[in-house]
């Protein structure tokens, strides 16, 4: 996973907010208070519990070890919970390594050794700094975590894994191999450079597999850990950010491309089997029982089956739970049999996947419908898409509007969508409505997870909107070269991507 300390700053900078997105339906919007419609289906992915931490904990990596689940939190440090009763997560302990800030430990990534005795946690020294330290934690008494020591490194560590007596670290453009000694001892054995943008690493036998956002899946021979060498690189569409190994296959979280399935029948020559698209950006992936694959997809969770027979099939999605905050994102994920653990910016959530259940699953795009400016006397229109991402037909029994000036063309109640089917439609705002509008549309369906799927709608907001002329500004490049927008658009469409470095 990438450094995400700064994401907290995004939140702090803007303060807490609420909204109804992807299933979050606070009382102030989305027609709250109405009875959820009955569904004949049972949700294949059911929320079990949420940990009881404070808001904005900025959870990152999640790992399962027996009946314990570990997670890194930018705010809280390294945490361990028991899931002996999965529906009642119990915190065992948490620790903020001594080298970092006690108020803001910036725990990023973690790896648990095979017997659960030691845990390695990477921590960022500061928001801007790209140098990290690796804390070694004695986990033999999980209710009383003890720091054994820490190793400062001049790297931005993006993912780690324990492999026998080795600790492997993906460090942006390279792979660093450490020998794990007694206690906190970590000795750097080697450093392989030449990777593009390494996000994480896993290992099996004499081979390490690196998720390289720029270079796909990189296979590294670590038979001699003092002299690792690249065996091959597998091109994968999208930016590979996470991977999990499962015997002779691997699953990759491939960013905007979705989830990729790779055959390791020849472990030194992986073969891309397929890539399943996801609507968000696949950041994390985990493997469950029965060939299940769990994916954190930025704004929700996705569950697939078919790993065993090399044919991934979507089963459904799970929105971020209510109250997670409209800014929250699905980041880390871990699996243990039919249980999955998901981290987002605010909390850890446990779910159970029921492989014997099937159900429809409604996805609506965009997440927020922005009605463009319309000419005088004309209605404002924008296109929205409904998709059934589930495994049973979806029936839309009604559409509810937060304001009577909204309507949808050509979408009668009773419309049914087959599994995988999409339906495009036009959302319309009556002509002559010029007041600023923040409202909603609910799609009432037999989706057992979200019987009322809420779409936020905004119109007539202050500022330049869709359908209006962009600001023809002159921007200065870092070397001082001016670039006027109208000159850039002469060459074709322009995407202005506003960003900050946090």
């Amino acid at each position: 996973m990438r450094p995400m300390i700064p994401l907290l700053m995004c939140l702090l900078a803007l303060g807490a907010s609420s909204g109804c997105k992807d299933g979050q339906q606070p009382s102030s919007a989305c027609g709250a208070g109405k009875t959820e419609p009955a569904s004949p289906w049972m949700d294949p992915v059911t929320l079990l519990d949420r940990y009881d931490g404070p808001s904005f904990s900025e959870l990152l990596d999640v790992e399962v070890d027996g009946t314990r689940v570990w997670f890194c939190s930018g705010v809280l440090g390294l945490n361990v919970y028991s899931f002996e009763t999965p529906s009642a997560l119990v915190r065992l302990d948490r620790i903020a390594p001594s080298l970092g800030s006690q108020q803001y430990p910036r725990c990023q990534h973690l790896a648990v050794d095979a017997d659960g005795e030691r845990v390695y946690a990477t921590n960022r020294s500061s928001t801007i700094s790209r140098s990290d330290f690796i804390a070694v934690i004695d986990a033999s008494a999980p209710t009383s975590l003890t720091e054994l020591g820490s190793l400062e490194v001049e790297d931005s560590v993006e993912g780690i894994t324990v492999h026998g007596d080795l600790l492997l670290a993906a460090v942006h453009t390279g792979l660093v191999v450490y020998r794990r000694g007694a206690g906190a001892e970590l000795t750097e054995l080697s450093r392989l450079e030449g990777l593009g943008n390494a996000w994480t690493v896993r290992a099996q036998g004499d081979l390490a597999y690196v998720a390289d956002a720029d270079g796909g899946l990189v296979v590294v021979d670590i038979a001699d850990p003092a002299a690792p060498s690249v065996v091959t690189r597998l091109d994968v569409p999208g930016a590979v950010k996470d991977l999990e190994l499962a015997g002779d296959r691997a699953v990759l979280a491939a960013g905007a491309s979705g989830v990729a399935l790779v055959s390791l029948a020849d472990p030194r020559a992986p073969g891309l089997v397929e890539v399943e698209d996801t609507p968000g950006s696949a950041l994390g992936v985990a493997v469950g029982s029965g060939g299940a694959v769990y994916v954190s997809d930025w704004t929700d969770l996705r569950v697939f089956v078919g790993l065993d027979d090399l044919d991934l099939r979507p089963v459904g999605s799970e929105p971020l739970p209510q109250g997670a905050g409209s800014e929250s994102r699905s980041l880390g994920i871990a699996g243990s049999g039919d249980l999955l653990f998901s981290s987002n910016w605010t909390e850890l959530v446990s779910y159970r996947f029921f492989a014997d259940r099937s159900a429809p699953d409604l996805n609506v795009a965009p997440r927020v419908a922005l009605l463009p400016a319309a000419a005088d006397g004309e209605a404002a229109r924008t296109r929205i898409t409904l998709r059934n991402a589930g495994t049973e037909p979806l029936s839309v029994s009604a559409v509810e509007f937060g304001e009577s000036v909204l309507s949808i063309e050509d979408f009668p109640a009773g419309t049914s969508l087959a599994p995988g089917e999409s339906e495009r439609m036009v959302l319309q705002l009556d002509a002559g409505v010029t007041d600023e509008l923040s409202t909603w549309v609910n799609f009432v369906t037999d989706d057992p997870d979200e019987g009322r799927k809420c779409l936020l709608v905004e119109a007539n907001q202050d500022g330049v909107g869709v359908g209006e002329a962009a600001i023809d500004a002159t921007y200065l490049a870092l070397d001082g070269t001016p670039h006027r927008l109208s000159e850039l658009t002469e060459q074709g469409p322009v995407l202005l991507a506003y960003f900050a470095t946090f």
Partner: protein
Amino acid sequence: MCSLEFPDLETDVWEPFGPQGVTVVGVATGGFGEDAETLAAFLEQTNVTFLVVWDDGTYGQYAWPDALSPFPRQALVDRDGVVTYLASEHRPAELREAVEVLLD
């Protein structure tokens, strides 16, 4: 955009659509006190190859949907200078579709 998503523009937009005439411009808002040194270090880490510029105050002039949402913010502008897509987060599938409409 937050640092987590910013490099994705390289693979999600710039690499597939740059050869078809789409220009990607990373607009540094500097809203969190970034100076030239900070920005240069950040760009070195992210390895992006598209154009990066400083904002001159335009950020606050767009009607971003979901105003409470943090970065990223994206505005897609067509050849006539008209905004065709505004987003307050990086939604690659939506963005890809919006770009493809302009290339048809």
